[in-house]
């Protein structure tokens, strides 16, 4: 889940550089911003050698809603450890992601479960994220072929980019429509389509501001297309890039702590 946050969020010094570069280019002649630079900046926005954050996750479904407090540490994009800190009933429940594998630790029974391939499309901790979202490390700049779809006429509004996965990319989507704010070229919405081009879900990025020394969306909301009343919202309470993590942070043993 965190990696998805990483992957989709946008901001950072690189992005700012892109923005200034873009505005310089725009002054010279009204050309499209270079897409490869933009998408790479988008991919790298949340990326650091390592990161540590505290997140509040709100899930609202037709039948219930709840709020989780999560502690997340990650290293690169391959490795992450998410631990539930609240509510008390689920405190200590943790998910470890290493490459394509996911393990859940259940403190109530003091056991670790490896999530099988058949359960990858199941919800992660009851949210609108799937287990698959955790492991698939796709990058716009590497796994997709992107093209501008709509451009703002007067420099305000939004840029719309449609990204189609490359034939051999490990992506479950048929297409993603990424929307960038014209003012700073930050991603503020991504719409996910299935292979028949039906909208599956929308992710909105909101509350842009300083986070871990970068400008990033501090709130992110997933809305499934088949039920507009449901959502999962993630709010970053704290976030730090390039933190020192003790060795063995991403091990099955540390999962159980």
């Amino acid at each position, binding site marked *: 889940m965190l990696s998805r946050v990483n992957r989709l969020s946008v901001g950072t010094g690189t992005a700012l550089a892109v923005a200034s570069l873009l505005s310089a280019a725009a002054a010279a002649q009204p050309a499209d911003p270079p897409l490869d630079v933009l998408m790479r900046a988008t991919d790298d926005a949340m990326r650091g050698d390592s990161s540590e954050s505290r997140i509040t996750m709100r899930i609202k479904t037709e039948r*219930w809603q709840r709020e989780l407090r999560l502690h997340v540490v990650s290293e690169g994009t391959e490795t992450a450890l998410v631990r539930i800190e609240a509510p008390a009933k689920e405190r200590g429940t943790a998910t470890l992601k290493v490459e394509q594998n996911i393990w859940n630790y259940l403190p109530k029974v003091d056991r670790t479960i*490896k999530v099988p391939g058949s359960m990858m499309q199941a919800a992660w901790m009851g949210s609108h994220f799937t287990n698959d979202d955790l492991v698939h490390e796709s990058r716009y700049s590497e796994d997709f072929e992107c093209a501008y779809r709509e451009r703002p006429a007067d420099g305000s509004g939004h840029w719309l980019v449609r990204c189609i996965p490359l034939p051999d990319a490990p992506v479950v989507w048929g297409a993603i429509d990424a929307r960038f704010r014209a003012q700073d070229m930050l991603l503020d919405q991504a719409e996910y389509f299935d292979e028949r081009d039906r909208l599956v879900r929308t992710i909105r990025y909101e509350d842009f501001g300083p986070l871990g020394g970068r400008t990033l969306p501090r709130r992110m909301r997933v809305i499934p297309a088949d039920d507009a009343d449901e959502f999962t919202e993630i709010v970053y309470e704290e976030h730090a890039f390039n933190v020192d993590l003790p060795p063995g942070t991403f091990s099955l043993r540390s999962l159980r702590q």
Partner: protein
Amino acid sequence: MKILRMAWRNLWRNGRRTLVTVGAMTLALWAMVLYTSLMQGMLGSMESTLLDVELGDFQIHADGYRERPSIWERIEDPDAVLEALDKTGLRSTARLLGGALVASGEASTGALLKGLRPDRDAQVSDVYQRLDRGEWLDPADASGVVLGYRLARTLGIDVGDELIALSQATDGSMANDLFRVRGVLQSLSEETDRATVFLVEDQFRSFFALEDGAHQVIVRSGEGQTLDAAGEMAQEAIAASAPEAEVKSWRDLLPGLANMFDSAQAAVQVVAFVVYVVIAIMILNAMLMAVFERIREFGVLKAIGVSPRRVLALILTEGALQAALAIAIGLVASLPTLWFVTTRGIDVGQLGGTAIMGVSMDRIWTGAVSPATIAGPVFILLFIVGLAILFPAFKAARISPIEAIHHQ
């Protein structure tokens, strides 16, 4: 009486021919009895696996559950439904169904948890008798579960081992618990073998934080009641307590399988017909030979004034005596065979567990014995022998002595 004595004497004037004819009939009868028994046994065991263990005759679900199974689509007041069904005399039980991730060690897979009350469920489903090893559920052992044999193999667990289940409770929280394997089932059906875990109702409710309702009510028809009549009865009974629920017979639930059973019955009959035709030709041949070899002898009988009717009676009596002998020997020969296929059965387990459209055949294929198993083949044999003997008998009875004497 004289004819009977004559017929008997005639039979042993060419003992070898008689023995061959009787032998053919005996073999035919024995094969038919065995075939009937095995087919009845197979269809019977598949049907009982399907209905007595898995499906019941009817299932009641909340409207919409079958299209989109979800822990939320419940029959609100299953107790009222069961009570209403009790009044009609139909046996019924309620089950709770919920998907979960089950795991042991590094192995894990998706499975359907089925919560039930063992005492009530036993009146409706024989699943409790179909354990391969271990024991069936016991409310006193709340964390004990029973699972399909392939699921147990996938997870690498056996009786006494622990099983972790993980799912989402109805309050949104993470449902997780530790269970202990009490028993492992025999091969029943694809679904049960591979992905079903039985547990007691209370445990299911606490696992999923589900206080009320049930997802499925299984109903059996009354004795001698047609499926349609029982269905109407059940529908009427639950009209007050669960007006929204849908009642579906097993034929509606699994139309493909219902068709297969019907066509399997037909196929059994077609094969039986073919077997009988072959046997009929064999017997006809023996009978024709027996009569035509002796045409001159019948000509002599006619010449010394025996009436055509008596000749006919003589030949028919000979046939009847042979058939009687064949039936006597055939039935005696069938007894040990029937005893073997009903008590020991044929082990088809080496074939790797045979399933037909998802319904498993028992690992031991046993025959069934009913009056029809024996009466059917006997009557058919008599019919064939009668048919086979009439043509040559009439021919012999009506032949003129001159013609017969010149017969080669």
